[in-house]
């Protein structure tokens, strides 16, 4: 795989993660448990959509076929999206949303810490801007895990159920194939060795403080990076793409 093609695929993966998760969070708009959390959640959603804009714009340039970020975001078919399965899961209750966010933020913070050192100037710049946002997202979601886990009996039960439901999607955060391998071998991105261990250390410490138990079943889900998605992505895209497909080239 040549470097430009690998970098295009890699940036597309990161961009799709941000896009799909940003969309999921936008579903909370007006439905948050309290006003302040409603605003916090849509702030995070907007941050992620902003990252998606930067990443997918860059992906379009790397692809070199004239697609801009809107074309890439709104006009692909389901199997052409390369986001991980975690981000397309339904929101569930507030706790489930926070658990999904917690897994994602902790991974992104560690990843961007490395990507800011990439010799690819554009990727490093995107990572630098996103890192500041991500640090805040991580603080926010980590604290909610602790509050809900070490909270009331009901909050503990619900967040434990969410942990049990989502843990099987966490390993895909560390999925790599020839896309990442090509980029690491050619020094375009720093090595991703040890990322999973650092993530485990952080996540386990927070879950312990939250008095939560990590599931022991080892069966893990994946497929998103290769365009094989759960039943949720189709319905999500119906909403995401509706306006652009109903009114092609529409502008606000």
């Amino acid at each position, binding site marked *: 795989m040549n470097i430009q093609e690998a970098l295009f695929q890699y940036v597309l993966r990161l961009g799709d993660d941000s896009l799909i998760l940003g969309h999921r969070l936008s579903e909370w708009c007006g439905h948050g448990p309290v*006003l*302040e959390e409603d*605003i916090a959640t849509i*702030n995070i959603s907007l941050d992620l959509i902003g990252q998606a804009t930067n990443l997918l714009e860059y992906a379009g340039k790397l692809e070199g076929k004239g697609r801009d970020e809107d074309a890439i975001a709104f006009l692909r078919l389901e199997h052409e999206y390369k986001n991980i399965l975690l981000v397309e899961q339904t929101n569930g209750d507030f706790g489930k949303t926070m658990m999904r966010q917690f897994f994602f933020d902790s991974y992104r913070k560690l990843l961007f810490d490395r990507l800011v050192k990439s010799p690819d100037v554009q990727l490093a710049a995107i990572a630098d801007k996103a890192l500041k946002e991500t640090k805040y997202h991580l603080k926010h979601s980590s604290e909610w895990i602790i*509050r809900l886990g070490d909270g009331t009996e009901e909050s503990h039960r619900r967040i434990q159920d969410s942990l049990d439901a989502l843990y099987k999607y966490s390993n895909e955060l560390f999925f790599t194939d020839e896309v990442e391998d090509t980029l690491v071998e050619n020094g375009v991105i720093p090595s991703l060795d040890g990322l999973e261990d650092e993530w485990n250390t952080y996540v386990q410490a927070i879950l312990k403080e939250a008095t939560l138990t990590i599931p022991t079943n080892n069966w893990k889900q994946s497929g998103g990076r290769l365009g094989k998605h759960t039943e949720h992505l189709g319905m999500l895209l119906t909403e995401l793409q509706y306006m652009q497909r109903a009114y092609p080239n529409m502008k606000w």
Partner: protein
Amino acid sequence: MSNQEWPLWEVFIRSKQGLNHKHVGSLRASDEVMAIENARDVYTRRSEGISIWVVESKHVFASEPNDADSLFEPADSKVYRHPTFYDVPDEVSHM
């Protein structure tokens, strides 16, 4: 399901150019850490400031509006309290 509200907090923000924190509003939060984050999310979205103070509303004591005349009007006619008879050199700022 509980109908209890989280405690109310008053929020003060200092802008980039400011010296003092200004009161901008209030919000609900369960503790001071959440209060700071909620204040950041609700009251600094549009770059309103670079520093946040939060105080639980129950710790704020205010003067009675009905007492305003006895508290504040007597000062109006006491010109000797204002240092207006000095020549302040130009080099001294913030006087």
